[in-house]
């Protein structure tokens, strides 16, 4: 019988309530715990992240566990043999289709991923082993990898001085000489002289000493070049005429290198032994960068100084290349104010660069300076500021441990609820020495910054972990709250009862507000509720602790000497308004920074995040400093400061008043004007300023000179974005041009605009020429069209030379000025009396030229760009315009050159010489007869012929066991421009248009793979370098495939040996196991002895056994069924008996 469960009413209610409570608590628990999933991919396209379920991309794997415990996101090493890379990566991203192979081990545990010294023929460096093999494959170079070498210095030393020498090649009764290694010379079939320079007179090569110097790619020094263009020894002026120095490489013939001044020969005009580690490297001499003193005594190259000059960024010290230092010493941040951040600076290649350690002082710069005097050098880095670990520390060894992240403050015997401990030995804190036995509490040594302007608190988990023992832990509203505290107060009054206004009370006991006061001292409670005569020491002390916690507490960061008690307007004095006696409580208020509540028996001090002053008058102080403004710095300058353009190169700290609908006020900017230009204000009849007129002070009528770039600008009273037009427009958007030549609509306070315009005479001349063409050569319709176009555009031609430029600017609030600001000017209406300016050429200065062969005309075409229509000439010598022998064609046409309109002349340059620098001098004469008084020089570099030193395959037949056969086609080039760096192509027919480029080219070695069937092949090779030198060659070879296994053509017995002869070179093995017969793997067989011809194979004669023999050739061709069956021959010796 079922027993009914009967509940009375009370029990039912209890049950229902109980269920309700359970359900509620379940919900409470569920809502309280954050559920994070390891998502293979999130909806934000991030891989392997811990996210809530709503952010998971459910089309991929996910699970409610840490990523390290999942299969798809487990971390290992992704290896790519093709790329030569090893990367720590989650498994899911190591895609085999992209050539990735996943290894679950850590990167440093994988042999192929370990680093070592990779030696290639073009140098050595520390890389991973797999990268070394990839480099060798990609560069087509032989490599050697030494895993035991792990420093760059040791690795570089491995590169042997390589047995360089003079390689003499005789061609067509010419003896040409190059510096090569022995192997390279052999490939070129040259005559090699190890250690000799080509300029060694004994060799009779015709290569001589020269005064030319150059830099060499991959090396730091300045080198001499001989007259043949070969790189000789390091530039040393004192040995410029030394036959010995020009005869041998260092280490040969008693020639040793001199290191000059041993300090890198910075700007030394007489020595080229630059040293990168000492701050110098080879560079082409530039008077602006290197200075007059450094002008090389020979050639055009010098050891450039890579060190950094004194400046505010360098701390007004000269800094060495590679030196690093801090923007502020670490000690400064012991008393950091809101907005203070730490930068790491370093000198690299002559420039000072910087790196922000952290936006909120979670990382700070630490610097060490070693050496003395001129040898002193700083070394700095960003270190973590582990301030989180300081809170709640109650043991000295943890607080003042070796990592020095924390400091201590004495409790001063104030009552405190913070964790404290007693010092066992003396300690220094904030410059004060605390003796052993002092009770202290642990605080961060370098208080961190906060996002004090944000509402959402994020308290680092490390802080919460450390504070788990504190009662305050669960109630923290911010980091600052850690330094909140409570103390007891005890007042008594003469008589019991209420404490109305106007009565007095007395302090009693260990009362934090009364410390130092005697019991009998009176505290007056006046009729406005203010306390008088209280001792605020405890509150001040608490505020000090508060400010040392982080960006907390009440103080001003713009007042250099903040005094808590003197900061009026922010803090009030303590106010006491007692309202009742027993159980009564009083309230002590301050307006900002801290709030203290005094109750009967207790005073609460609450430490809150620091807040900046109201308003935004100081916002702009953040801009234009040595380092870009950050949001943290900007916000610290005022409550109304806003940070804009943060994710750009031009962040700004501004004060935006939302109610400000006034557009920027535009005024002319004096600093934008160049010398001899002035503004004159233009006013309306009612004296309202309309704009300015720009005048040229050197002309009588103030009109501007033609074709002379001039600039003018505007300044605004607030940030704006500005445009201009030549015509009046209805509104801002209609205006066509951005003021200041800016591409982006960034906001600024000032802008400068540059123009370069023709004069009246030039425009009229151009217009009249067009008019003449139209009327004289055009049809009636063309003339009509011309006239109608002219009617439209005549105003914009400015035939009278008068210009008006209208400007408008828009503020951040989108307010723009209705009335434009006007710039007015006129262009000169007179003959042009300024000389033309040669802006440039269509050749880059120091461009290489292809070698001119015998009988070839040595000339090239050139285009000269000038700023106005002119006639131009050139000469091989620097002389006056009239004396110059060669004229150019100048048609008065224009083109855009370097983003500016320019006129050009063209013509031919002749007299070019090979293997040397060719200087050409140009001068021009304007259409008004004004000539250049100085020449513009163009240097073009003659080169040597490009040479192909080897082509392979250099065998008659290429054989392979597969079809098609992979034939590597390889070429080596030499000389020409850049010592043989060239692009090579190949073609089977040699017909134009049929050439294909080598897969690996643009270097001195070139290679590509051909896949060919059996047959005879020939290829035409052509190579060319950047100077246009080219060289051709041919190669021919046969391709044979061998897909047949060797055949045993004879079997015989010789003495006690069984011998077989194969029809081709082979390796033979045998087995005697009858059960398996021929069904064994080749590797498991017993090897037969081979003779030197590799065709005769033998083993011991044994008539009792059967010999199951397999033979394979060099191409792995084996008998059919090889590996599991098939023999070349089965021999039964007993049949021979």
């Amino acid at each position: 019988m079922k027993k009914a469960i009967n509940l009375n009413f009370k029990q039912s209610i209890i049950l229902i309530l109980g269920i309700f409570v359970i359900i509620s608590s379940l919900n409470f628990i569920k809502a309280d715990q954050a559920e994070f999933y390891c998502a293979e991919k999130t909806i934000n396209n991030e891989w392997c992240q811990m996210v809530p379920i709503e952010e998971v991309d459910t089309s991929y794997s996910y699970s409610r566990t840490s990523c390290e415990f999942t299969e798809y996101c487990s971390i290992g090493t992704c290896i790519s043999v093709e790329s030569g890379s090893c990367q720590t990566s989650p498994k899911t991203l190591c895609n085999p289709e992209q050539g990735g192979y996943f290894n679950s081990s850590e990167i440093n545990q994988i042999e192929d991923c370990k680093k070592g010294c990779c030696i290639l023929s073009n140098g050595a460096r520390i890389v991973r082993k797999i990268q070394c093999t990839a480099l060798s494959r990609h560069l087509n170079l032989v490599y050697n990898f030494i895993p035991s070498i792990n420093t760059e210095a040791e690795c570089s030393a491995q590169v042997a001085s390589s047995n360089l020498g003079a390689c003499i090649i005789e061609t067509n009764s010419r003896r040409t000489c190059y510096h090569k290694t022995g192997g390279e010379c052999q490939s070129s079939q040259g005559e090699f002289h190890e250690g000799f320079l080509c300029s060694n007179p004994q060799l009779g090569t015709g290569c001589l000493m020269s005064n030319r110097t150059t830099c060499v790619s991959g090396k730091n020094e300045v080198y001499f070049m001989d007259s043949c263009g070969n790189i000789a020894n390091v530039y040393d002026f004192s040995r410029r005429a030394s036959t010995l120095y020009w005869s041998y490489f260092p280490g040969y013939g008693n020639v040793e290198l001199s290191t000059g001044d041993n300090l890198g020969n910075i700007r030394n005009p007489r020595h080229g032994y630059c040293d990168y580690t000492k701050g110098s490297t080879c560079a082409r001499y530039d008077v602006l960068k290197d200075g007059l003193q450094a002008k090389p005594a020979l050639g055009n190259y010098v050891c450039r100084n890579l060190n950094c000059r004194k400046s505010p960024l360098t701390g007004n010290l000269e800094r060495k290349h590679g030196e690093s230092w801090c923007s502020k010493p670490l000690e400064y941040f012991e008393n950091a104010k809101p907005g203070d951040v730490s930068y790491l600076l370093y000198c690299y290649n002559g420039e000072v660069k910087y790196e922000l350690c952290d936006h909120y002082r979670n990382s700070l710069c630490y610097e060490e300076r070693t050496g003395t005097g001129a040898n002193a050098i700083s070394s700095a880095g960003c270190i973590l500021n582990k301030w989180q670990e300081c809170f709640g520390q109650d043991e000295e060894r943890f607080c003042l441990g070796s990592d020095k992240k924390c400091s201590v403050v004495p409790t001063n015997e104030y009552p405190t609820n913070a964790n404290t401990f007693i010092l066992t030995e003396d300690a220094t804190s904030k410059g004060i020495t605390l003796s052993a036995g002092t009770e202290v509490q642990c605080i961060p040594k370098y208080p961190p910054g906060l996002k004090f302007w944000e509402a959402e608190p994020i308290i680092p988990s490390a802080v919460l972990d450390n504070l788990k023992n504190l009662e305050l832990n669960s109630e923290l509203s911010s980091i600052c709250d850690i330094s909140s505290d409570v103390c007891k107060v005890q007042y008594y009054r003469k008589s019991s009862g209420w404490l109305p206004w106007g009565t007095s009370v007395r302090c009693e006991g260990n009362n934090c507000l009364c410390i130092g006061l005697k019991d009998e001292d009176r505290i007056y409670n006046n009729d406005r509720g203010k306390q008088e005569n209280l001792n605020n020491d405890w509150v001040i002390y608490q505020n000090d602790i508060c400010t040392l916690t982080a960006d907390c507490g009440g103080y001003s960061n713009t007042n250099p000497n903040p005094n808590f008690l003197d900061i009026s307007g922010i803090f009030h004095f303590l106010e006491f308004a007692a309202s009742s006696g027993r159980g009564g409580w009083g309230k002590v208020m301050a307006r900002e920074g801290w709030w203290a509540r005094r109750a009967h028996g207790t005073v609460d001090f609450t430490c809150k995040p620091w807040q900046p002053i109201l308003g935004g008058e100081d916002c702009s102080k953040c801009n234009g400093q040595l380092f870009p403004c950050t949001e943290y710095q900007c916000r610290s300058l005022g409550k109304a400061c806003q940070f804009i353009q943060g994710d750009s190169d031009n962040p700004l700290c501004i004060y935006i008043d939302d109610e400000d609908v006034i557009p920027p006020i535009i005024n002319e900017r004096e600093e934008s004007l160049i010398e001899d230009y002035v503004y004159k204000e233009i006013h309306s009849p009612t004296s309202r300023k309309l704009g300015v007129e720009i005048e040229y002070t050197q002309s009588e009528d103030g009109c501007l000179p033609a074709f002379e770039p001039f600039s003018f600008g505007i300044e605004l009273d607030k940030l704006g974005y500005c445009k201009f037009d030549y015509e009046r427009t209805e509104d801002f958007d209609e205006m066509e041009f951005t003021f200041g030549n800016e591409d982006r609509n960034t906001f600024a306070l000032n802008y400068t605009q540059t123009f370069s315009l023709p004069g009246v005479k030039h425009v009229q001349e151009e217009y009249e020429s067009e008019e003449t063409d139209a009327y004289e050569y055009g049809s009636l319709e063309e003339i009509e069209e011309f006239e109608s176009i002219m009617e439209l555009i005549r105003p914009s031609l400015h035939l009278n030379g008068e210009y008006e430029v209208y400007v408008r600017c828009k503020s951040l609030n989108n307010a723009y000025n209705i009335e434009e600001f006007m710039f007015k000017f006129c262009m000169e209406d007179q003959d042009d009396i300024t000389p033309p300016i040669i802006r440039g050429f269509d050749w880059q200065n120091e461009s290489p030229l292809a070698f001119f062969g015998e009988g070839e005309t040595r000339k090239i075409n050139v285009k000269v760009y000038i700023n106005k229509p002119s006639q131009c000439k050139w000469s091989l010598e620097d002389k006056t315009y009239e004396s110059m022998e060669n004229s150019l064609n100048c048609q008065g046409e224009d083109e855009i050159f370097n983003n500016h309109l320019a006129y050009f002349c063209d013509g031919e340059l002749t007299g070019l010489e090979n293997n040397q620098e060719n200087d050409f001098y140009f001068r021009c004469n304007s259409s008004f007869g004004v000539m250049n008084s100085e020449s513009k020089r163009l240097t073009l570099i003659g080169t040597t012929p490009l040479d192909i030193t080897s082509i392979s395959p250099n065998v008659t037949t290429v054989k392979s066991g597969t079809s098609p056969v992979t034939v590597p086609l390889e070429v080596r080039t030499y000389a020409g421009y850049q010592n043989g760096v060239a692009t090579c192509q190949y073609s089977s027919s040699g017909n134009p248009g049929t050439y294909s480029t080598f897969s690996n080219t643009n270097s001195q070695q070139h290679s590509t793979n051909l896949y060919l069937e059996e047959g005879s092949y020939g290829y035409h090779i052509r190579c060319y370098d950047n100077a246009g030198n080219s060289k051709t060659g041919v190669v021919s070879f046969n391709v044979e495939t061998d897909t047949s296994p060797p055949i045993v053509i004879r079997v015989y017995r010789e003495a006690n040996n069984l011998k077989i002869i194969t029809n081709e070179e082979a390796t033979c093995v045998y087995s005697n196991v009858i059960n398996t017969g021929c069904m064994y793997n080749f590797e498991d067989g017993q090897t037969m002895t081979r003779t030197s011809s590799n065709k005769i194979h033998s083993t011991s004669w044994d008539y009792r056994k059967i010999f199951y023999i397999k033979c394979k050739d060099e191409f792995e061709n084996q008998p059919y069924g090889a590996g599991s069956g098939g023999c070349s021959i089965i021999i039964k010796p007993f049949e021979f008996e």
Partner: protein
Amino acid sequence: MNKFIFLRNKRGQVTIFIIIAILLILAVLLLYFLGFGPEIIAPSDETNPQMFIKNCLEDKLTDTIRAVSLRGGSVNPERYFNYNDIPIGYLCYTNEYEQRCVEQIPLLRAHIQEEIENEIQEDVIVCFNSLKESYESRNYEVQLNSGRTVVEILPNRIITRLNYVLTLKKGQTDRYDSFTIPLSNNLYELIVISQDIIEEEILDGNSNVISLMFLNQGFEIEKNLRDDGTKIYIISEMDTENKFQFASRSLVIPPGY
């Protein structure tokens, strides 16, 4: 009289012929100078299919390489940080605080190669179609077999191989088995340096750019720390315009509040 008339007529005919001849000459001259004369066919790249394809695709290739280089290796990065109006892809990322980042594109070189291949594919088809049409218009018999586009990033160069087979027949037969476009660019080395940086970000949460620059002379590395803890790395090759930039977010300590 008839003879005179005949003679007169004959002279008249000659005159007319002379006038007509002069007019004809003038007409030809006029046509020539006004551009209606026979077209002068200048040698063009279309006579060389290799050059044609190279010229047709070179700009697109260059632009694509520049775009992926500035965006962290992807044409359209999926997860990026916007800096200077450019979306810069994350190569290493964590959304958490106090955690080291997770590599997002471990096979970076292969990824970039694929991105370039995909981006230029349409242009490749268009260029080959143009090439085919240009030959067909000159009465060539053209056979074009399309193939794979393969981009290979190698030291100092980027090779684009188009495995198209073009056969041209007009009298003789010319066959072109593949087309190669080499570009001078050291993206290879920029990628290697980037991967070194990422490895340091994964292991240490940060990288030492000064050491890396000394190990890689000829390159400058800039590290730009953003407010949310993202670092923008910009690797530039000196004396060229080659640049590669990417974003990373690793071991970010939140500002306490």
